[in-house]
């Protein structure tokens, strides 16, 4: 009698496992080190992306998705082939599409080729790294990788995945975008949505063999109106949830989209705020964007990759911006990241992409950075992973936030916060204060400038999409498109007061750095933020012009 089928290894796991064993025992170039670690990260699922415009489907993509990320490391945990970048050169990470059927031999052939390519690239990368270090004094560098105990999770133990219903997604984008037909002023009335449901297998030579469910549903709504003077005004709405069942009731989403259309339609009478210098109140989604755009690079401890020596380069050198002991927020503020939360939020998880269980990290205490989010890539300040190793596709597994809570020492009510804001405005002679309620998420930017400051390029802020003048009589008047001038993390120290809590808000984001602006509108990893509304003492915003008035009168859609 042979082994019962119940004990058989899933074919995907079998294919990866057999190739892992073969590679660890046999991969060896002459006069070059063998791999000391191989890790396979496999994504296996379905992805459907639907886009509709004013109630009609524009595109639909539906594919079976099975992709392997093969990472090979040579050297040792102390010094290995990772954390080094040479322009245009491959490193030890290779992605490859795998056949969607469970044919072990066909799967193994793809894994074989990916592992071979990753190993060769890793050997070259290590030599480039050692060459770059040649002549250095006794290195004060941290080690390259932190060992971690193996972790096991069986496929059979996972709950069933929800079905991916492309017809339901298409219907959703059609129905939501149809709401925007009622607003003839709109030039763009698009809804883009994606379902991604699948499984992830981490298999490594350290002994990890971890199956997990993964996926998300994202819905993005975009409306654009062109005002009489030609200025374009854009506004957005997003939902990010785990499954279709987690979306709000359809009627609620439709109402939100109608609200967006109505808001944009009303922009035709909005005044232009040419040049503003004064206090700014960040409410609702804008408060979340303020923190989520400025804080991550200050709280992630993953060191930048080493590079080849280049004395001529002044600003392209990557310097870590996260610095323990740096004041990031006013006295009394705390920031905690807790992916272990039992809340059903997008940023929560039980194992990061490196198989490490996350821990709660109090990052900022009393306004000062006291701890860092870490992956298994250590820094001089921190050697242990905090279980935050997550990245996109072929990127190295640096750390990124999970479930962040920003807490002020005291909070004012919305009324009190607004009163305080008006008082600050009056101090600088303004009869109103600007309130920013929504900003473009990095995934949805059309155009963006980063702030270049003394210590490195720092993220600025994306364009606000909803800005109001708040007058002393409580009147809120929307103003036309604006942009921030000269913003970097330092503005967070200028927070004057905090208001009501916003969140938890789920979003899709990327690791800190330029990559987060390249994740696309329906890509990224789940992150959750809970923040207060905040009043910043002084910010500069200018009105955005551009565009030409329409020469042709556009016909209505009905």
């Amino acid at each position, binding site marked *: 009698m042979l082994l019962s089928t119940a004990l058989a290894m899933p074919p995907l796991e079998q294919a990866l496992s*057999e*190739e892992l064993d073969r590679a660890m025992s046999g991969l060896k170039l002459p006069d070059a080190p063998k791999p000391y670690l191989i890790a396979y990260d496999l994504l296996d699922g379905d992805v459907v992306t639907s886009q509709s415009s004013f109630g009609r489907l524009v595109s639909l993509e539906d594919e079976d998705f099975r992709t392997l990320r093969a990472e090979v490391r040579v050297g040792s945990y102390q010094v290995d082939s990772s954390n080094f970048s040479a322009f245009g050169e491959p490193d030890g990470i290779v992605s490859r599409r795998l*056949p969607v*059927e469970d044919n072990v031999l066909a799967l193994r052939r793809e894994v074989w080729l990916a592992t071979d390519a990753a190993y060769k690239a890793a050997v070259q990368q290590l030599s480039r790294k050692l060459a770059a270090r040649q002549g250095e004094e006794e290195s004060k560098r941290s080690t390259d990788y932190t060992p971690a105990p193996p972790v096991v999770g069986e496929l059979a133990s996972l709950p069933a995945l929800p079905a991916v219903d492309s017809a339901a997604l298409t219907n959703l984008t059609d129905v939501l975008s149809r709401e925007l037909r009622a607003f003839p002023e709109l030039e763009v009335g698009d809804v883009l949505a994606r379902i991604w449901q699948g499984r992830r297998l981490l298999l490594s030579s350290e002994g990890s063999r971890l199956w997990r469910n993964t996926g998300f549903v994202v819905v993005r709504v975009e409306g654009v109106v062109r005002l009489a003077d030609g200025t374009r005004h854009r506004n957005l709405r997003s939902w990010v949830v785990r499954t279709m069942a987690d979306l709000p009731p359809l009627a609620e989403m439709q109402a939100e989209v109608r609200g967006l259309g109505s808001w944009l339609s009303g922009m035709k009478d909005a005044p232009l705020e040419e040049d503003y210098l004064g206090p700014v109140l960040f409410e609702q989604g804008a408060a979340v964007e303020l923190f989520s755009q400025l804080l991550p690079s200050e709280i992630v401890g993953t060191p930048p990759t080493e590079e080849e020596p280049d004395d001529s380069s002044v600003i392209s050198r990557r310097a870590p911006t996260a610095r323990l002991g740096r004041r990031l927020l006013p006295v009394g503020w705390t920031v905690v990241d807790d992916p272990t939360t039992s809340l059903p939020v997008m940023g929560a998880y039980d194992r990061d992409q490196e198989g490490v269980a996350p821990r709660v990290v109090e990052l900022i205490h009393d306004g000062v950075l006291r701890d860092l989010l870490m992956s298994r890539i250590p820094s001089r300040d921190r050697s242990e992973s905090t279980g935050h190793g997550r990245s996109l596709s072929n990127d190295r597994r640096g750390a990124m936030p999970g479930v962040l809570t920003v807490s002020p020492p005291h909070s004012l009510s919305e009324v009190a916060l607004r009163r305080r804001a008006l008082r600050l405005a009056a101090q600088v002679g303004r009869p109103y204060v600007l309130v920013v309620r929504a900003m473009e998420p990095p995934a949805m930017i059309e155009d963006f400038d980063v702030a270049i400051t003394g210590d490195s390029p720092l993220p600025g802020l994306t364009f606000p999409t909803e800005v109001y003048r708040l007058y002393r009589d409580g009147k809120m008047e929307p103003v036309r498109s604006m942009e921030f001038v000269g913003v970097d993390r330092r503005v967070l120290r200028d927070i004057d007061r905090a208001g009501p809590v916003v969140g938890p808000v789920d979003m899709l984001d990327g690791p800190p750095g330029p990559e987060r602006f390249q994740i696309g509108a329906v890509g990224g990893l789940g992150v959750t933020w809970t923040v207060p509304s905040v009043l910043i003492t002084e910010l500069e915003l200018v009105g955005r012009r551009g565009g030409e008035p329409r020469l042709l009168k556009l016909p209505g859609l*009905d």
Partner: protein
Amino acid sequence: MLSLLFALPLSLPPETSEVPTEPLSDLQSALGAAMAQLQRLPDPPYYLAYAVTETDQLTLQGTNGSFAGNERSRGRVVDIDLRVGSMKLDNTHKIRDAAWFSEPERPGVRAPIADDPALLRNLLLRYTDDVYRSALRQLIKVRSNDVVKVEREDLSDDFSVATPVQDVVALPPLSVDEDAWKATLRQVSAIYLQYPAVQDSAVEITVQQERRWLVSNEGARIADGRNHLRLATWGTAIAADGMEVQVYDYVDGPSLEKMPDPKAIEAMVHGVAQRVTALLSAPLVEPYDGPAILRGRAAGVFFHEIFGHRIEGHRQKDEDEGQTFTSRVGQAILPTFLSVYDDPTLQNVGTVDLNGTYRYDDEGVPAQRVPLVEHGVLRNFLMGRAPVANFPTSNGHARRQPGFAPVPRQGNLLIQAETSVPYSKLREMLIVEIRKQKKPFGLIFDDISGGFTFTGRSTPNAFSVQPVTVWKVFADGRPDQLVRGVDLIGTPLTTFSRILAAGDDPEVFNGMCGAESGWVPVSAIAPSLLIQQVEVQRQDKMSDRPPLLPPPGVR
């Protein structure tokens, strides 16, 4: 740079039908609404055309005995072609000595897949507004450029009159039995496992249906389309010297009935695998000049690249172009035994369907058979509606990939030899030539994977084509030897002057051609050609070692 590609980005809904005419009415209505408003403006366009192209595509792939996956896509692309000024001088006129980024941006517009007249009209008017304002700005620059610069070498107009066509062309329905094809792909792709030398491989079928609706303010009203299928297979391996060996074979056709049956696909796969295996151990060729034969498909690609792109009409008036043949009309440019035509109306040669067949070009002009070279003498150019000196009208060759502005392109290029010899005789003539030139060997180019050519003045007017299968032929009777690692290079006039003879064995090359107006399907039909002297250079190659471990399952 202009280049040829064999492989389509490979991927239809299960059901398709004849080209419906509703979008034509919707486009016509939108065009009427736009023109009514535009004509009230100070500088109204004199020409406005709308086209919507719908593409449905399905690709199914198999690899190593497994179904590897599928890709489906469906979408509609809108093209707005608008001209302000006059036929004599309009916004499309090339600005001389301009920076590359001064070209006006063409908006990429996607239309809803389902018919929605109101939404389509709104979309078209919005983008027509953008295109019109951009055209006005461009016309100002064009007029200024014409005054500031010296007189143009070619004073022909920017646009010509064409009789508007109204036609609805039926398109046969397509439906694919996906399960049956998956089974076939599993079965045939497993054959590669019998060939340990082949490292990576696939077999796939792409089924594409394209439907187009075009209207203009001149009264053009066309609904037509194209079905295209490709069964393709490839195998790759890395040779011991680091060179990647890739062999690609395919069959194109307009219907499933024209695709090979499983037995024929099996034969294709065996053929590819055997060629990969043989090429891995084939010796490299050193740089060489001497006599050679280009077999039919290779000769077709050769003519497409070296000749075809140089007789595209717009290149004759563009002062940045090398204009190899502009002033050679009426002169001999090829041996007297060769004539060249481009005939998009030709549907097949023998049993082989042609890729470059169409009834109307992308300016709505009926495709015409164009005698380009007769008895070696240049007679004509491929023309769209932009005239060239002495060639004032279109011959229906303005083509584009949806989303691009149309320019004259090749369709089905036919190279015909009035005197020809059987291939065996041509081979004997090659050996005679080897001896006459006292060369150690000659070359036979069996197949070519693609190529490119530079036609501009700022770069040498050279070409490079990438052969897949090259044979050394020895004058002393030794068997032919398969070799690898060379590209066929040269310059056009010199090479054409050295064509000595042609075979009686015309073959069809079907492929995709990329140039300014995007990728368009083309064919080239040519006999084998004996060339007195060709030059080959070492092929670019990687230096990767072959995989260190044997393939899984092989001990």
